């Protein structure tokens, strides 16, 4: 019984353990292991002389090694509860934090991450990834969207039309995600919706990951002749965005199916209502009505 707190509603409930990490998700009458963590790949620094020795840069994603580095072992938590929404504010370190929230009567959880300035005083570029690990037996198969529409079936270390020999194991398994990445087995399905195009993959059993920020120190010699090292106010850029997690049954004979929930959530999050503000200091409520 390590889980010590949970947020959620009648449709989805997220359980966090004593270390402050998400550990399980309860949805559709089942509880599955789902944990979320921030990790990073160290960027490769090549001499750019021959093709195989290019640095990771604006045109290519090329980690120095396949192993990821962990960012924090025990995020600090603050939990806020109310009638409309419950939130867990996680602070991993001084440049990574996140708010996990579940609104009343909604079937998805929001992960609003805030990353940056990425420290590079060790002289190494870093590529930050949000990784969701589950106990779903997806048999190395996962699905990535094609421009927000059809889902393309992917299999790790495999291509359908030729015998693959991967020289860059991680980069060779990364795909463009415009709005959604998902995996399933015959009982459960996990999908993550993005609020912008990102690189993504499934680098392990039951695991999905999305690259949310990069800060690189070397040009990759593909033309721009500049390292991807965006700054603001003289520091590395701070990026903020949201992932939407949907976990549910993979059965197709229930209504609404998990895929239907994904589609409606995607439509509503990618084409949200426009907020237009007007100062009303000079008009009373009655007149306004």
């Amino acid at each position, binding site marked *: 019984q390590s889980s010590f707190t949970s947020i959620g509603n009648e449709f989805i409930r997220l359980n966090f353990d004593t270390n402050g990490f998400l550990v399980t998700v309860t949805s559709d009458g089942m509880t599955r292991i789902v944990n979320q963590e921030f990790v990073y790949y160290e960027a490769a620094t090549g001499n750019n002389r021959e093709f195989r020795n290019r640095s990771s840069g604006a045109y290519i994603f090329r980690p120095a090694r396949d192993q990821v580095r962990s960012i924090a072992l025990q995020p600090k938590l603050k939990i806020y509860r109310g009638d409309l929404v419950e939130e867990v504010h996680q602070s991993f370190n001084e440049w990574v*934090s996140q708010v996990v929230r579940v609104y009343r009567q909604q079937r998805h959880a929001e992960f609003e991450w805030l990353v940056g300035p990425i420290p590079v005083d060790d002289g190494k570029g870093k590529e930050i990834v949000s990784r969701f690990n589950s106990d779903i037996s997806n048999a190395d198969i996962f699905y990535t969207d094609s421009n927000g529409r059809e889902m393309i079936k992917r299999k790790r270390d495999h291509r359908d039309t030729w015998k693959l020999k991967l020289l860059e194991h991680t980069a060779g398994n990364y795909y463009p995600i415009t709005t959604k990445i998902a995996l399933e087995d015959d009982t459960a399905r996990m999908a993550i919706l993005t609020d912008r195009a990102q690189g993504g993959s499934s680098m392990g059993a039951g695991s999905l990951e999305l690259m949310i920020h990069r800060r690189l120190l070397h040009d990759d010699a593909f033309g721009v002749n500049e390292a991807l090292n965006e700054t603001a106010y003289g520091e590395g850029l701070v990026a903020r965005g949201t992932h939407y997690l949907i976990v549910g049954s993979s059965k197709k004979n229930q209504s609404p199916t998990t895929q239907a929930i994904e589609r409606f959530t995607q439509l509503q999050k990618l084409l949200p209502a426009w907020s237009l503000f007007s100062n009303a200091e000079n008009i009373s409520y009655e007149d306004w009505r």
Partner: protein
Amino acid sequence: EPHLSFLREAMGVMQHHDAVTGTEKQAVAADYARRLEVAIRACATNTKEILNQLTIDTSRNTPERELGKRERRWATGPKKEYLFKFETCTLLNISSCAVPEQADKFTLTLYNPLAQTVTDYVRVPVPNVNYIVKDFDDVTIETQFLPVPAPVQDLNFRKSSATYELVFTATELPALGYKSYYITKTNGNNMKPVPDPPN
């Protein structure tokens, strides 16, 4: 039309593979952002014109008999027509917006671009926790206040006086339609959000 054409041209420039993939130089990326910001701001005029026209048409076309007893009392004499500014906030995604941060009374109009009715939650960045939200039917909407998470990295980069987010539910936004809410600062002293006691 000139504003829309300007935005069309800016979006035309954004079809370049560098703009799509982010392989342009930093200075060029900054110029792309500048072009888009100027063009979107120029089209705010269009949004304002159209929404004002919509709101005036709605108020003109609501026949007296359809107004409830309460409205009839208020609908006396010639209707005053207000032109609202309907400002968009391009920094809402980092919890920053001038109108709710500075005004004691403001309206929020939500335009639903989908062809289906939508109910969603709204987050408005505000400097404190004393606000009430009313809809056009004189109903006070349930609200909740949450602190804007202010980790260290945010302090240097988010120039905003908003320390809380006002959350409420916008129910049944009509397809391709809008709904407005009237938000007022009160003298009350609502409870500030308090986190669970540490475990």
